């Protein structure tokens, strides 16, 4: 399980390639499911120019580990990679990467979706948006 928080922009495709290169189970996986979340320049009808993503150092990393373990403990998943941005983020920047490897597609698809959904409701991150004329805290997740 690879969990990483980043203060700078990252390239999700390079992250996947790097993780895959360092794995010791080449040949064992036949499915790779990927979710990449990217910052939009609009939310709730307003233009968003930047965002500050706050987290709880110490707890956020542990909670990501816990939720990934919970999702995959009874699933034939071979590896999980989660990369999440913190700090200043701009429209077009990737915010989160979830990648799951397994022998067959069902476990990879299901676990990738579950990790992402649980992450949005449990991982301690908070978004503060900068609009044209003010700032505001994002108070709820989008429905999906």
């Amino acid at each position, binding site marked *: 399980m690879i969990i990483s928080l980043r203060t700078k922009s990252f390239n999700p495709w390079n992250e996947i390639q790097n993780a895959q290169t360092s794995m010791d189970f080449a040949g064992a996986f036949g499915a790779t499911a990927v979710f990449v979340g990217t910052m939009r320049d609009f939310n709730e009808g307003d233009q968003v120019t930047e965002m500050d993503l706050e987290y*709880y150092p110490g707890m956020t990393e542990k909670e990501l580990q816990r939720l990934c373990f919970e999702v995959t403990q009874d699933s034939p998943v071979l590896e999980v990679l989660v990369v*999440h941005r913190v700090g200043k983020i701009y429209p077009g920047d990737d915010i989160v990467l979830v990648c799951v490897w397994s022998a067959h597609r069902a476990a990879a698809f299901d676990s990738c979706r579950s990790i992402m959904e649980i992450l949005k409701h449990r991982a301690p*991150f908070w*978004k503060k948006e900068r609009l044209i004329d003010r700032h505001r*805290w994002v108070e709820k997740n989008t429905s999906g």
Partner: protein
Amino acid sequence: MTVTVKFFASLREQTGCDRVDITIEQSCSVKAIWKMSTSLTLDPHILVAINHAYRDQESDVCDGDEVAFFPPVTGG
């Protein structure tokens, strides 16, 4: 006995404080820790963590604990 209290995101701005160390004479509830830390009302939607793990507002707090209060999370 000392407890470290942390506030995050909008709660940090509302309380004007990101961290405060408070002294307690004996173990007490999360709700009691909140009252000792701020004059704001403890909304039932506010989330609580003790030593980096989720707990509820009825949980007990002990010497040396780190108690965090924060609004619903919005990552991803």
